């Protein structure tokens, strides 16, 4: 681990040096900082506007699935691990935190730590068994493990409530020294909590993707054998990424349980795993913003379609196929397409 970390730094230095060779390193970096500052302000602004534009619970749900989709994108977009079993970790974290919250322990840090820990543990167990299998095989294994977790939760009625879901989940309370205790029964406050966790996740994941760890993961996605032959512990790093994604998914699951005060068994079904992959793909996997946009569009469309027609999954299926055919890079790809069109149009005018 340590050696590979060092090597990662070397890799980053090499990249930076090559940037300096091109002669614009300093300006590029300050430009980058300004850009990321602008992006940060834009993101905070969007988080403030979102609850005004949509019903507050839908807005919260978008943030929760945004967290879930970003975690999944660490695997799909960065590491190239096509997991079809992420709902298992979302559900494991959600059920664990929900159980704690439904049985009288309402401390927020406790609930989040339980969700994070259980999500990560289950992901570690699944990851150890499946990470060395490649490609299609990996996908089918994660899918099968997802089903295993589903059946365990489905059959373990005394703890999980079986097919009725886990009911009676209380919103947590945050005890701060000297300040007092914060309850989250108010939906606006709960949105605030989700927004804070969303921002924290986004910052952490963006930093992770750009860190030596993330760069080695990306390298292994592009050419796994070569990365291994350069001396990186690819399997170990992939497992670490898998556990991190599982832990974050667990937190998203916990928030979902708190939001609706129930953890439905459907949230663990493999279809939920497929939905989060949808979110990543229809948004665009090249940045962390893509999955968030994907989650927002997905949740919004789901609400819209389900109002229009009882057979709404049909519309969803059509939408996904059309997006895949016409916008293979996702909705973020659409923005860059549009901006390149407008640039060309301007170029023609001047």
């Amino acid at each position, binding site marked *: 681990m340590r050696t590979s970390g060092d090597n990662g730094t070397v890799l980053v230095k090499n990249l930076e040096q090559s940037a300096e060779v091109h002669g614009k390193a300093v300006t590029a970096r300050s430009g980058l900082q300004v850009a990321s500052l602008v992006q940060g302000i834009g993101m905070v602004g969007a988080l403030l506007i979102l609850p005004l534009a949509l019903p507050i619970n839908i807005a919260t749900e978008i943030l929760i699935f945004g967290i879930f989709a970003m975690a999944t994108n660490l695997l799909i977009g960065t590491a190239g691990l096509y997991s079809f079993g992420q709902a298992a970790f979302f559900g494991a974290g959600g059920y664990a935190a929900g159980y704690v919250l439904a049985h009288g322990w309402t401390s927020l840090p406790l609930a989040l730590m339980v969700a994070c820990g259980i999500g990560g543990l289950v992901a570690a167990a699944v990851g150890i*068994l499946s990470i060395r299998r490649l*490609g299609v095989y990996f*996908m*089918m294994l994660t899918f099968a493990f997802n*089903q295993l977790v589903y059946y365990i939760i489905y*059959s373990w009625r005394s703890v999980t409530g079986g097919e009725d879901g886990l009911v009676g989940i209380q919103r947590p309370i945050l005890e701060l020294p000297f300040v007092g205790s914060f309850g989250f029964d108010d939906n606006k406050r709960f949105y605030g909590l989700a927004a804070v966790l969303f921002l924290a996740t986004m910052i952490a994941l963006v930093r992770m993707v750009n860190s030596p760890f993330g760069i080695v993961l990306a390298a292994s996605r592009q050419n796994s054998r070569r990365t291994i032959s350069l001396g990186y512990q690819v399997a170990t790093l992939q497992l670490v990424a898998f556990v991190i994604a599982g832990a974050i998914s667990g937190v998203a699951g916990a928030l979902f349980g708190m939001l609706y005060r129930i953890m439905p068994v459907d949230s663990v079904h493999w279809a939920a795993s497929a939905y989060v992959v949808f979110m990543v793909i229809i948004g665009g996997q090249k940045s962390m913003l893509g999955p968030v946009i994907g989650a927002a569009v997905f949740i919004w469309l789901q609400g819209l379609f389900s109002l229009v027609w009882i057979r709404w999954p049909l519309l969803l299926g059509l939408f996904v196929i059309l997006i*895949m055919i016409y916008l*293979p890079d996702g909705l973020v790809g659409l923005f860059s397409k549009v901006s390149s069109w407008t640039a060309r149009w301007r170029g023609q005018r001047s």
Partner: protein
Amino acid sequence: MLWLISAQLVNGIAIGMIYALMSLGLSIIKGLLNIPNFAHGALYALGAYVCYSVSSVGMPFAVGLLAAFLATGLAGLALDRLAIRPVGENGYLPQLITLFGAALIIEQLLLIGWGTVGLSYSPPLILRGAFDLGFTVLPKYIAFASIFSALVISAVWLLIERTKFGAYVRAGIERPDTTQALGIDVDLLLSGGMMLGAGLAGLAGGLALPLVGATSTMGGDMLGIAFVVLVIGGLGSLYGSVAAGVAVGVVQSLMTIAAPAASTAIIYAVMIGILLFRPQGLFGER
């Protein structure tokens, strides 16, 4: 007790043969197109519904099975042309997504066409009742389903191992580029493989109809089991899935005696156990 166990055993073999049909289809598609067919469960459900409709308008059950095979085969062709081909150049993730989208569409179409209430169907008169074997009874339909599946699997084996089409299929699985270079139309071959694989799923659905009825959600559960069977049998082994399918069916049926609630979870546990000792599956290559 012996009576119960042997009854569950024959039951398990019949269900296992249906799993084997499903997984053989999945295995052919996986081999040729290198994608796990996420619409396989929906095709299975489609087969059950088509078989129900054809049989309930007075046609013989055998015609129902044939119709299930042909209809899902055509659906497989449609999937190939509309969902797989248009996104083909970008790796297999987009294809999975479109196949999953197609599965959603098929399941909803089943609900629109046949309603939300599950359908049940009893086998034709000649297949009702049971043979008394002394130590146990063997329901006639169970015997029929096992023998029929075995015949279909043998026919597919003959088709793939003993015919020119089969030789192309094997070549396409082994070395797609070389096959193309030899002047064989691989595109056509892939469509053929998709149709055959999808048709087998539909046939499995038709065969399962008298046993489990037809519901729109039957596909999702079956898809999970078919994946488990494929993983246990080992990817890259076309016929490993047949043995694994029967084994999974038998294990699942026997477990319903001991722990009915956990009988489905147990096959996943079996899968984990096998993966720990043989990561490539029972018959897979490393």
